[in-house]
């Protein structure tokens, strides 16, 4: 191969490196307090407990623009004991609120899936409120990488 002078000095177009920049890392994350405030407003005086709620999300997002997540809450879903709502937050997005799913005993089971956009590596937080007012929370760290090199 012979590169001529112009080719030698030509700059490549597009986003480059070993790394394609999928999502801009430059964004203003919501203040941690904004996330905390949302959780507090949702939970009221109830204690945040672990268990019963499971959040499935990839460890590393394949595409930060569309990250699949699933929330599932263990509940008999009867009229005396059911999941009333599940709030999903992303604490590193400019606005932490993602979605709130509403359930009733008629739902049969408290499961929901959706795809969310993540600006950068951050925690996805799911909080479930039960019909008796108790609240359960789970958190998953999802990494949004600017890319890796092969392997």
């Amino acid at each position, binding site marked *: *191969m*012979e*590169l001529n002078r112009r*080719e*030698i*000095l*030509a*700059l*490549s*177009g*597009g*986003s*480059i*490196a*070993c*790394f*394609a*920049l999928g999502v801009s*890392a430059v964004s203003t994350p919501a203040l941690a307090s904004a996330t905390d405030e949302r959780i507090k407003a949702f939970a009221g005086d109830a204690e945040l407990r672990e268990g019963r709620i499971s959040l*499935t999300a*990839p*460890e*590393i997002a*394949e*595409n930060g623009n569309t990250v*699949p997540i699933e929330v599932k809450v263990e509940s008999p879903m009867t009229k005396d004991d059911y999941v009333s709502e599940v709030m999903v937050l992303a604490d590193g997005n400019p606005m932490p609120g993602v979605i709130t799913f509403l359930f009733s005993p008629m739902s049969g089971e408290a499961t929901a899936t959706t795809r969310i956009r993540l600006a950068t*590596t951050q925690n996805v937080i799911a909080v479930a409120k039960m019909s008796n007012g108790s609240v359960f929370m789970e958190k998953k*760290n999802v*990494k949004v*990488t*600017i*890319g*890796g*090199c*092969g*392997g």
Partner: protein
Amino acid sequence: MISRREFLQVSVATGALLGTAGSGAWTALAARQGLMSEAELLAFPEFGNVTLVHLTDIHAQLKPIFFREPSINIGVGEAAGKPPHVTGKEFLELYKIEPGSPEAFALTYEDFAALAKTYGRMGGIDRIATVLKSIRADREGRVLFLDGGDTWQGSYTSLKTQGADMVEVMNHLEPDAMTAHWEFTFGIDRVREIVDNLPFAFLGQNIFDNEWDEPAFEAYKMFERGGSKIAVIGQAFPYLPIANPRWMFPKLSFGIREQNVQQNVDAARAAGADVVVLLSHNGFDVDRKLASRVTGIDVILTGHTHDAIPEPVIVDKTLLVASGSHGKFLSRLDLDVRDGQVKGYKYKLIPIFSDVITPDKSMTELVDKVRAPYEAELKTVVGKADTLLYRRGNFNGTFDDLICDALLSEREADIALSPGFRWGTSVLPGQDITVEDIYNATGMTYPAAYRSEMTGARLKEILEDVADNLFNPDPYYQQGGDMVRVGGMGYAIDVSQTIGNRISDMTLLKSGEPIDPQKTYIVAGWASVAEATEGPPIWDVVTSYIKRVGTVQGKPNQSVLVKA
């Protein structure tokens, strides 16, 4: 400011050695010098009723090669100081291997160039064919032969034939199943075309259609051998859409999908499996964590990270087997399966010493046939290596330094970036560098050598990101290859830190000045995962550079300061 001379690559302190201690078959062989005979290499005690034979990460190497094992392979978190993160002398001590012995040559980097002259090349698919035939003859009706993937990519001929050479040769070896990684870099259409005609199973429980989240390939297959039912679950490389170009297989999603592994194990057990095998391309540390969290897997045949470990690593009740790369080794694991359970095992990591093992004639002929159209080009001498050229290791290897030098020089760049691939063969001091050698280090489907502008801040961000992909203490957050190789710039790295805090002292080597976060630098690199990257293929850049310098003088890289 740190000057070039002050950057010294320090050896990494090895932590407490945990896991298995050396006590296996290698110990007996290690006391002697000189190569063993073929019969000794193949000897195996009569045991059990099922034999698993594992070959992985051959990276399209059909002929015997030299491949230097890493000198630096740092484990973090719970993997610190455990195999495979033990190298050199510590490795020899752990497994009681005599320095200078054939095993030391096969398994470590110590005295590699000198020992290579004594013990010769390793691998060669015709030698592997001989070993496989011998095992099948010995264990008729009891053998499962499994290919862990990274089989179709990594050579001149595999690139030119889009993997057809490897498919033809592997079909001749008659594997029972395979999984995949680099296979997908030929594009989804080519993968489908090959898989549709494959006479054996192509498995990946973690490959899904990303639109409907439905399985895109078979998850597992049940086999019957030696009177037992064996379920083989495939696990493709979990981070293909991140570490490799997503646009080449835009409708697929991967991931570890641990819960799905458990569901497949449970399904296989419910279907009557006596033995459950995970044929995995996760990488060793990911598999070690997976084994501690998923129940019911008897054996994980690991891959991706190219580790060769002489004994299985045992996690709870799961045996983890690591069979090396580039055809250097074939693993044989004999299992005693009774009453729906594995009662015992015997294992041997069989080193494929090409001077000792007789090539299988029909396979030699097939290899010659698939290489014949390219033989003249493959043999073409481009230059000469004055010192050992190798790639494998967490930081720079001398072959990568050569590639970085070529990028800096041919593209007039300030800084060069070269991906930390684990594949690529070694060239001995004094050897000619051929076209084949260059493609063994560069042959892949997105080779464009870009030339771009980046700020110092952006460069730091890239190094931090890649470092976190390699040194995140949670293996599930590790992806891709070794650390990106850097030319024209020195830096210090503290692997124990968190993302954003590992890299410091970035220095432009040509001026000795610290990298200015605001300033823009000309950066040349290759293997961008972005679509439509512009630039000449990297092999042309490297060829043109070697032609110009004639003899390549590889010097020890002293521009990365490692703290661990």
